[in-house]
């Protein structure tokens, strides 16, 4: 109702105590093509759907290596994502130069979040229109974080962002309890399954998705198309036997998932969760 009066710039509060420009930025994330992440005790897998503008063009890069132990998958304004990846890479390089040790992921996501917050409190700036799934390994284990345009960040066992991510989240909610002790290959298979959910019937091929892995003894790298296709072929058969699982039984998730649903006017402001 009153949205249009208070949404002109990011430094204007609405009477309900919301910053609409920031919420609009989160909307941009939902419009981007899907990106998912899941982790076990020792590995994290990132995956994304490759959406090209047209048949003639190539798809945009959505997964970036930040350092040997950190990688990021983005959804939303990929240009903003690229710029933030460059910032993250610089931070890792500078930290490594000074301390001769890898930048702990927890530190990096806080710096990223603070950088995003600045854009929510300057009249001459706009919020970053990109959500980042940051996957990283440090002394305290494997971590998966989600960084919002609002400047909030959350840690997850598994998460999905972007368009049709709810389908992937439903799948992940069903399976997440097994992730902690899952093997690396099972984790990749689950990632592919989750991506398949977002494709809504479209065939899952290695040309349609990108998968990246980071884990103990395994520096961050993007899997090559051949390997991904092999894994798809391996479980596609199993998938047929299992049959499409009943969509019923969407249990309320115990994991700290964001109630991303109501981004629009009414309901709880997403960034307050």
């Amino acid at each position, binding site marked *: 109702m009153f949205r249009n009066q208070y949404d002109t710039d990011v430094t204007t509060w609405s009477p309900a105590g919301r910053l609409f420009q920031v919420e609009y930025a989160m909307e941009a994330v939902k419009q981007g093509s899907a990106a998912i992440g899941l982790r076990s005790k020792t590995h994290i897998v990132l995956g994304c759907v490759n959406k090209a503008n047209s048949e003639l063009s190539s798809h945009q890069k959505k997964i970036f*290596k930040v350092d040997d132990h950190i990688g990021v998958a983005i959804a939303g304004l990929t240009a903003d994502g690229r710029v933030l990846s*460059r910032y993250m*890479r*610089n931070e890792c*390089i*500078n930290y*490594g*130069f000074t301390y001769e040790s890898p930048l702990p992921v927890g530190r990096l996501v806080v710096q990223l979040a603070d950088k995003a917050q600045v854009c929510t409190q300057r009249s001459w700036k706009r919020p970053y229109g990109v959500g980042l799934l940051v996957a990283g390994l440090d002394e305290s284990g494997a971590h998966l974080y989600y960084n919002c345009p609002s400047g909030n960040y959350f840690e997850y066992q598994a998460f999905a962002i972007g368009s049709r991510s709810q389908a992937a989240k439903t799948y992940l909610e069903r399976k997440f309890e097994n992730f902690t002790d899952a093997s690396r290959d099972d984790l990749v298979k689950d990632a592919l399954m989750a991506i398949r959910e977002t494709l809504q019937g479209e065939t899952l091929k290695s040309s349609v998705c990108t998968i990246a892995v980071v884990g103990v003894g395994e520096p961050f790298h993007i899997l090559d198309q051949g390997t991904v296709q092999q894994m798809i072929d391996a479980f596609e058969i199993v998938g047929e036997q299992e049959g499409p699982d009943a969509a019923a039984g969407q249990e309320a998730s115990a994991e700290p998932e964001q109630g991303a649903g109501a981004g629009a006017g009414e309901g709880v402001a997403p960034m307050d969760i």
Partner: protein
Amino acid sequence: MTKQQANWSPYDNNGGSCVAIAGADYCVIAADTRMSTGYNILTREYSKICKLADKCVMASSGFQADVKALQKQLAARHLIYQHQHNKQMSCPAMAQLLSNTLYYKRFFPYYSFNVLGGLDNEGKGCVFTYDAVGSYEKVGYSSQGSGSTLITPFLDNQLKSPSPLLLPAQDAVTPLGEAEAIDLIKTVFASASERDIYTGDKIEIVVVNADGIRREYMELRKD
């Protein structure tokens, strides 16, 4: 009124010698492992050799604190290059980067005398030799450091092409095999450590070829 003299110097010379020889499909880079200051030995087991990229290795003698800082700078720049280009830096590219990095500190130089060795994009061995402020040249072989005055004339004798003006005409130098080059390095260091007090203890020999990078050591005089 005499000119004011500095009461301390930011530099120190930790001594040591470096050599590199380029072959048709390999490159050998070697340095001794002695680190000294004045007439004292700080350690007998310090590596002056640093791998900068997949096919690019640098050996540096001089002030090792500056050498370490230089190596870290180049490593960080190489990371950035890899992020931007999705590949490793080639040896000639690294050679230019090293030159630029050195000249950047033209008015407070890195006290570092470098030899860069590796394979170029075609897989041929290449050696680049530098002064402290970045002047560099691609050569077939080079030596830097405290023993260079003893080593270079010997390498010239063995490796330099004879002048075309000589009479009677002499054959051009035959290409050196990898094993012969390593042997020459060992001979050259053994000789240098006889008369140069700053060279000795051990040689670290790094060989870069199509199969990758491998490392060898040889004992030298400890005195």
